[in-house]
């Protein structure tokens, strides 16, 4: 990598961009310049305004104030088409691919006049294959996107931008879904691209990535730029302090002696669901007073395991035992009654009902118990008292229990769900991506509650794509890949790159080693 040349041409200039959503100022007078061949990182915790800023640049949103200039020319607001034509390409955090179409169709979409006959596939295909070769982004252009792995989909997204001759590439949290090795490969691609004159904006909340790839780093907090630093002349501690606005360290779970086995999966298999694999002969024990971390790229069977523990799924083969007794009838209601506390992966889609108030959401799992209903009649005063209890005990910031949950911030929503799951004092806790998308304060709170539950003697299964989170909290770690479970790794016996190899499918019995 070459040193950023002071005189390199400015390719992008954002000037005092401001955007408010209702009372929230997501972006407050943010300015940024990007030079040719440079990688600038946009660092900030969740909710700092990074994605909003890039959505303004790309034309998904219109800024309330401020201007965007690309190669010295102002960019008309609110038009992704104009951004694309000016040479801006964006790889969104949630991929924007149509699963039922081929890679080629996804790349060619929108590149030709809608009223034309189209150029024909052969030429387009040759171009995609050429680009793939040049940038080391191997992918079959004729494959259906729904059949691709997450890593391959990301390559398609980058190819989409390159196919349109993008000069500026925006990557929004690109490594969140990758193994460490895949992330390294991505970094190599980016270095290769910048050497050819591409400029990159790299959005992340991970310090080590920012220091590894970026030349310069803009730190955002609460919608404002709180610092702009040369990554070669700073360290992680300084960046961290800038990002969270002072000292805030995440809780670390101290090692502890595990208790008896509370839940045991014995050679459990479940059917595949579309492109997502089911479980393949998974054997797993969850012990009292122990956090079991499950690492893996999402879509590798974690959903099936979570559904199984939640009561939504029964094994096709194998047995699940609770306190030594194999289960036969198994539904979410039975699971809750048997002492399983469940924090679902998606708090908006499965964890809560947006237009229900906090009281109604609080009793979603327990409304059938004698505490909240008798003979089919709801006891709303009891439900309300329960909700008030959670609000007080779990520090849910809200106007009151009659607030619709959609109005709460992600952190407060998660606290209510956490309270709902933990209030009955569950012996087994499923925490599926419990802190995804939360700000640092909420992350610290949720993680400390999980540790407290462990210290009280609960068995916890923590599912996460974030290796830092897994390694920081877990007493023992498994990796899941293609529905298979790795052997158990006790705390401190495995490194992140090692876990990455397992995540990529290496090391499993009979596994074909991926190229």
């Amino acid at each position: 990598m070459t040193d950023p040349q002071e005189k390199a041409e400015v390719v992008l200039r954002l000037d005092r961009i401001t955007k408010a959503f209702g009372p929230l100022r997501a972006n407050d007078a943010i300015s940024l310049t990007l030079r040719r061949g440079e990688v600038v990182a946009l660092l900030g915790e969740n909710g700092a305004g990074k994605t909003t800023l890039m959505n303004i640049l790309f034309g998904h949103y219109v800024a309330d104030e401020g201007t965007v200039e690309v190669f010295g020319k102002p960019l008309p607001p609110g038009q992704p088409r104009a951004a694309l034509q000016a040479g801006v390409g964006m790889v969104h955090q949630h991929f924007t691919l149509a699963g039922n179409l081929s890679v080629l169709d996804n790349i060619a979409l929108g590149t030709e006049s809608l009223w034309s006959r189209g150029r024909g596939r052969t030429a387009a295909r040759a171009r995609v294959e050429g680009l793939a070769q040049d940038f080391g982004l191997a992918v079959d252009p004729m494959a259906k996107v729904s059949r691709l792995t997450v890593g391959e989909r990301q390559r398609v997204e980058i190819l989409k931008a390159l196919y349109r001759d993008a000069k500026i590439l925006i990557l929004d949290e690109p490594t969140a879904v990758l193994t460490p090795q895949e992330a390294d490969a991505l970094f190599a691609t980016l270095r290769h691209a910048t050497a050819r004159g591409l400029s990159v904006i790299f959005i992340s909340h991970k310090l080590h990535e920012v220091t590894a790839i970026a030349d310069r780093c803009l730190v955002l907090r609460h919608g404002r730029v709180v610092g702009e630093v040369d990554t070669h002349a700073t360290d992680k501690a300084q960046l961290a302090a800038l990002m969270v606005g002072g000292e805030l360290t995440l809780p670390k779970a101290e090692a502890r002696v595990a208790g008896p086995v509370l839940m045991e999966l014995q050679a459990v298999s479940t059917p595949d669901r579309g492109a997502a694999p089911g479980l393949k002969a998974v054997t797993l024990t969850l012990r009292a007073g122990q956090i079991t971390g499950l690492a893996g790229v999402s879509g590798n069977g974690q959903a099936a395991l979570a559904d199984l523990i939640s009561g939504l799924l029964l094994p096709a083969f194998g047995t699940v035992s609770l306190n030594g007794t194999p289960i036969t009838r198994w539904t979410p209601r039975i699971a809750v009654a048997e002492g399983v506390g469940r924090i679902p992966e998606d708090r908006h889609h499965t964890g809560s009902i947006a237009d229900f108030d906090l009281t109604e959401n609080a009793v979603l799992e327990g409304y059938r118990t004698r505490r909240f209903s008798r003979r089919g009649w709801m006891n709303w005063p009891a439900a309300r008292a329960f909700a008030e209890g959670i609000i007080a005990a779990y520090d849910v910031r809200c106007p009151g229990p009659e607030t619709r949950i959609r109005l709460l911030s992600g952190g407060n929503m998660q606290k209510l769900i956490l309270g709902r799951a933990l209030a009955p004092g569950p012996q087994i806790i499923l925490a599926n991506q419990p802190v995804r998308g939360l700000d640092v304060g909420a992350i610290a709170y949720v993680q400390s509650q999980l540790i407290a539950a462990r210290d009280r003697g609960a068995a916890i299964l923590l599912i996460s794509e974030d290796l830092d989170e897994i390694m920081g909290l877990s007493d023992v770690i498994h990796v899941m890949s293609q529905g298979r479970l790795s052997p158990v790794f006790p705390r401190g016996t495995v490194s992140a790159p090692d876990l990455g190899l397992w995540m990529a499918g290496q090391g499993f019995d009979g596994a074909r080693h991926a190229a």
Partner: protein
Amino acid sequence: MRLEPIANPTPLRRLGLPALAIAATMLVATLLALIAGADPFATLGQIATGALGSRLAVLETLNRATPLIFTGLAVAVAFRAKLWNIGAEAQLYAGAIMAVLLGTGALGSPLVLPVSALAAMLAGALVLLGPVLLKTRLGVDEVVTTLLINFIMLLFVSYLLEGPMKDPMGMGWPKSPALIPEARLPRIVDGLRLHWGFGLALLAAALVWVIQTRTTLGYEIRAVGQNPAAARFAGIPVNAVLLKTALLSGGLAALAGWSEVAGLKGHLSQDLSPGFGYTGIIVAMLALLHPLGVVISALFVAGIFVGSDAMSRAAGVPTYIADMLLATALLFMVLAILLTKFRVVRG
């Protein structure tokens, strides 16, 4: 443009916008009257007097509202669970058939009314059960199946009235024999042409309201309607709730047909319902799916129909103005409801 959720809509917004929807509908009414070459204000006035101007008119409106309350409730209950029951018309006829089947002498005791009401509800529920099972088991969209069953049911009624259920004294008209007196719903007040079906409809509305707000079933129905994935995760048996909703909805729609036969007509004919099942959708939407609101909106809708009939005879504006106004009101209302929750912003 983009829609942005409004955190706390003001009461003005929550009530003003639906009121504006009704006002806009009235504006369309004046336009239609103008197109028809009539004096718009006179036309509106004639609709109002036609619906409310005399004791007879009011009674007619109340009678017309009765089946609409039932079908409106049926739709409101189902739509709350996002169960798109568009088959209230078929369920209505199922109820009407049971009223005739049990009310023409098969059952002679004072039990005949409650028994035939229950049988009607059961029949209506069964008609909806098929589409709901197809939805829950096979994922077949219930909108199309319930719609198609409406057509099948009308042909079935036609078959019955020309065959096994034909009135031998009917001079060749396709109609059923008359109900025996014990099987008829009595009038609420002697001498006034308003039967107890109206009272039962009000009772049904109150009951549905209690179910929705006070019972676990009502809570389950709302949860399933708003977010089936979250409901399933929380342990609510989604398919069972949908089936229960269907039974309730189909039963309510059937009572519309049952009360028309047992209360108003006294026999079954092919023109028993001028689309009460479909109008029930409008009634429910105008009521924002609230069971007590259904009563008010059914009265409003019935008033428009009765008033337009009277106005049409006097002013020569086609009576179909009523259907146009109600369809317009439906579309304005769904838009108004959306705008109470979201504001339109640029970019």
